[in-house]
């Protein structure tokens, strides 16, 4: 079952802000029965939302927009049943929350009226569903593990722990495989599923699809990027084209080398990452361009065939030449030119060095944090207005998503693995970027991880946001400015009002550990080395 990550954002009537906050706070206060203050313990909700991993309901405040009601849900399997379950548990509270929202101006207005009417009994779920957003990018730390499996493997790991404890020194002198086999047979009656082969976390089909999607989008984008060079090649002869290229490329590159370095004291130790990334991956890039050439060939040959009325052999030849020039122009001119444009913007960006976080909001955020090993955050930032920036955000974010989806299979972003479920979505008609995350350990350590282990990616995602610390070449500096980035991020956040986690005591790493233990126990036999490695996790 696939883990779905969704959110809903609705504008709140300013007059109803306090009422909504009270409603959400009551929702939490009236339910949490865990450790004092533990926001993650909601037995009734967890039992009645059997597929839910994380659920949050917040009100996002900011000084230049009316507040937003944001509902975040991460759940296994199809959506319809999930919203029905949510309605069954929180229905009347949801209706009341909707009453605090503005009446939409689109074609859901009628439904809004019916759901929020005085003493209405109309189900709120269909209205909510009309406003559900698919995130532009999302990330799952324990990909391919449904909630049921996470909980079952937790129970198993605990049972293993108990057995080992009861066993005392009885294991001395045994081999890891002996221990494993003994545990397996002892636990089999309670965990019958140990007899089955564990389901693949990411089925082959899904993997292939991930790569196919990424390849398709990349092909589309790059293929379009070849067009300018190809058109020039169709118009001019090789010599003329060569001269033109030299005339354009040389100044562009000169300009680029001057411009690419961080300006002023913006630089951090991470400078030159983009270029060195390009350099270390040169073979991959060349390979990709070769594939691009091969794939584009038939396309442009057919275009030549139809548009220019050529014969096949002629068309193949002509298009090969055009494509080759297209690639040369892309690499020699278009990419550096685009980067210069980006650099131009970056050098003129305003970064907010002293963002003010509302002290009352900050106190409330802190108050909700660090009761359990997991935490939650919601942040909304405005997007910078320039066209290439917006284009980067709108196209880049999904592209980053596709790339992460295809390439990251083990939950590691860079070398950090503390994110259970995170998502990015555009709200307020695409003018703001919403970020929701359910992560491990403290907010400080989460952001230190971002800064220390994944700042390039984080910078790429957020560099188009108003006030973000100064960036160089899309991925450099930016989030590497530790405290500036943290201050900026804090100021974009709102207190989490209501938040439920289905496994509040488990970190991403521990879930993976439990999974390794379980998978190991499922095997009928393991070679000694594998068994020893398996035993390391106990």
């Amino acid at each position, binding site marked *: 079952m696939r883990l779905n990550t969704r959110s809903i954002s609705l504008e709140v009537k300013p007059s109803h802000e*306090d009422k909504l*906050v*009270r409603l959400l*706070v009551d929702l939490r*206060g009236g339910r949490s029965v865990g*450790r*004092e*203050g533990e926001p993650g313990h909601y037995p009734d909700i967890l039992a009645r939302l059997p597929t839910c991993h994380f659920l949050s309901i917040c009100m996002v405040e900011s000084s230049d927009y009316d507040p937003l009601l944001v509902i975040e849900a991460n759940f296994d399997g199809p959506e319809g049943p999930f919203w029905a379950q949510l309605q069954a548990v929180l229905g009347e509270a949801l209706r009341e929350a909707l009453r605090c929202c503005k009446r939409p101006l689109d074609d859901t207005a009628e439904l809004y009226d019916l759901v929020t009417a005085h003493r209405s009994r109309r189900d709120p779920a269909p209205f909510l569903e009309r406003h559900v957003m698919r995130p532009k990018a999302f990330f799952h730390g324990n990909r391919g593990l449904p909630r049921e499996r996470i909980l079952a493997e937790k129970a198993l790991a605990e049972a293993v*722990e108990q057995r*080992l404890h009861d066993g005392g*020194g009885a*294991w*001395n002198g*045994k*081999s*890891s495989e002996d*221990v494993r086999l003994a545990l397996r047979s002892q636990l089999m009656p309670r965990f019958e599923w140990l007899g089955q082969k564990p389901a693949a976390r990411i089925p082959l089909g899904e993997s292939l699809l991930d790569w196919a999607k990424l390849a398709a989008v990349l092909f589309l984008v790059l293929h379009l990027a070849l067009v300018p060079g190809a058109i020039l090649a169709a118009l001019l002869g090789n010599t003329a084209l060569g001269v033109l290229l030299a005339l354009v490329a040389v100044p562009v590159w000169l300009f680029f080398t001057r411009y690419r370095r961080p300006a002023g004291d913006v630089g*951090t*130790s991470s400078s030159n990452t983009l270029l060195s990334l390009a350099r270390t991956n040169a073979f991959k890039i060349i390979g990709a361009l070769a594939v691009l050439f091969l794939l584009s060939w038939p396309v442009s040959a057919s275009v030549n065939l139809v548009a220019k009325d050529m014969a096949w052999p002629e068309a193949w030849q002509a298009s090969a030449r055009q494509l080759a020039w297209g690639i040369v122009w892309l690499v020699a001119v278009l990419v550096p030119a685009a980067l210069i444009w980006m650099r131009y913007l970056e050098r003129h960006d305003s970064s907010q060095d002293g963002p003010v976080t509302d*002290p*009352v909001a*900050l*106190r*409330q955020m*802190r*108050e909700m*944090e*660090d*009761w359990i*090993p997991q935490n939650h955050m919601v942040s909304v930032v405005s997007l910078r207005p320039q066209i290439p920036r917006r284009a980067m955000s709108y196209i880049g974010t999904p592209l980053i998503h596709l790339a992460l989806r295809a390439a990251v299979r083990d939950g*590691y972003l*860079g*070398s950090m693995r503390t994110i259970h479920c995170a998502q990015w979505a555009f709200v307020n008609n695409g003018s703001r970027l919403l970020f929701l995350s359910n992560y*491990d*350990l*403290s907010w*400080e*350590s989460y952001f*230190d*991880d971002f*800064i*220390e*282990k994944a700042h390039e990616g984080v910078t790429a995602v957020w560099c188009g946001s108003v006030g973000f610390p100064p960036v160089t070449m899309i991925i450099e500096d930016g989030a*590497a*400015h*530790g*405290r*500036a980035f943290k201050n900026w991020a804090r100021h974009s956040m709102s207190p989490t009002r209501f938040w439920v986690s289905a496994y509040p*005591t*488990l*970190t991403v*790493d*521990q879930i*993976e*550990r439990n999974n390794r233990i379980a998978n190991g126990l499922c095997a009928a036999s393991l070679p000694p080395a594998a068994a*020893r490695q398996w*035993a*390391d*996790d*106990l």
Partner: protein
Amino acid sequence: MGGRPVSDKNLDGSSWKLAKSHAHEVQGMVVSGFSHLPISQTLLLQFKWPGTAHGGKWLQKLEKVAPVTPADGKQDSSVSLGITATGLRKMGVGEEILAGFSQPFREGMFQTDRMRRLNDRVGKDWSECVIKGGPLWSANTPFDHAGDGSGQLANLPRRDSIEVETELTVHAILIIHCKEAPEAAAWAQRTADVLKQCDVDVVRAKETTLGFDGEGMVREHYGFVDGLSQPIPWDEKAVHDAPPEPDPVNGIALGDVLLGHVDGHHEVTKGPLVERQGKGLADPDDKEGLDLLFNGTYLVVRELRQDVAGFWKSAKRIARSMGPDPKTGRPFGEDWVGERVIGRSMAGDVLRPGGVLKRKDPAVPDNDFLYFDDDRAGLGCPLGSHIRRGNPRDGLATKPSQTKSLLASSNRHRIIRRARKFGPYIEDRMVDDGVERGLMFGVINADIERQFEFVQQTWMMSPSFRTLFDETDPLLGPKSHFSMGAEPVRRRVTVHNHTRLAGGDYFFMPSLPAIEWLSRL
């Protein structure tokens, strides 16, 4: 002393020195553990004058009896000074100036959310890691209500208590380092008398010592060699004779221990700029203005009481409960257990599978080791041992490709430890003599949240450190499990708490120019 204690290479930080231009401004304690001054007096001060004005006078008096010593060379005695946020306020530092200090410092160690993070108090109860009845002393910083007029905060369902007050209020800490005990005691007395004249009381005084053993090693009360591992600050300009690159294992940015220099996150902390001759903020362009934080740092102090007999008796119980060592057939000793708790042998060498790490220098245990290649699974040095939690080095990596970035990232959370003992060594570690003893644990760091608090919260006290579960630091944490790597499966035992917090807070360690400025308030 012909045979100088070998371990003081690190203690003294003689592996790094500040460049001249900075050395005379920075307090000596930042760069040195004063191994040549093993005896010290730690005085906790409370300002008793009424109101919050003219609070600089005591510093002028102090200058006469116990001037704070800079880091520009070895001296026969040394004085270090730290002031709490409530202390600064009492001295008359304006709120607009205080706003330029870091938040944890302004809020104090016993702010309610902070106590939860440090695991000192969760909800309404003190944790087991705090002495009965709660800590004795702190800065008693009032709770910051964030000027909430909306009532939003007041309406929250509250599950903790926000006002915590300790019996003693501490506004400043003064540490006098000497060679001999009588000298230190007399000097402390003299200082106290002088301070008394300007309404400053010494509310708590402790003789604190390094205490070398016969081999020139510093041993803390449980008997372990301490002070072996320290970070080595590096800065191209501000460090004297800086090597071209930071130390590959222990190198950190100077800005992580000294404010106003480039830190691990590539930033330079700017403090409030004050008028050299006045009391208020200076024009931001004033070339003569003084950056109050520049060349200062933050000092975290935690007075930790140690129940030595409790620790060793419990170690013995654990050793017995494990049965004989399958390799030797002999029972495990309590030393064996204690060594796993720390992660180093009694001699100070880090544990490795089947023994300890071979020394490069036969006189001193190595400290430039890593974990990933040689002891990834913790078969030697347990994954949750005190030194692995305190500084995981590259050991949090799960794949070879991560080791570099994880070492770098764990070095962003390093702290300089300046701990000294109080109370006498115990006669027989198995017999409780009822005497109070422990560690006056001090940490020098520039970003309290990213360094001390991170270490305490995310590494030491986290029940989810790495893939461990339900266990915290076996030396500092509450009663919990403790796993020790072994074949075929790890041994997991229950450890109890024997180290308890008796007081503490966050202090600002001003630069000498800043002290001078403060003295004119």
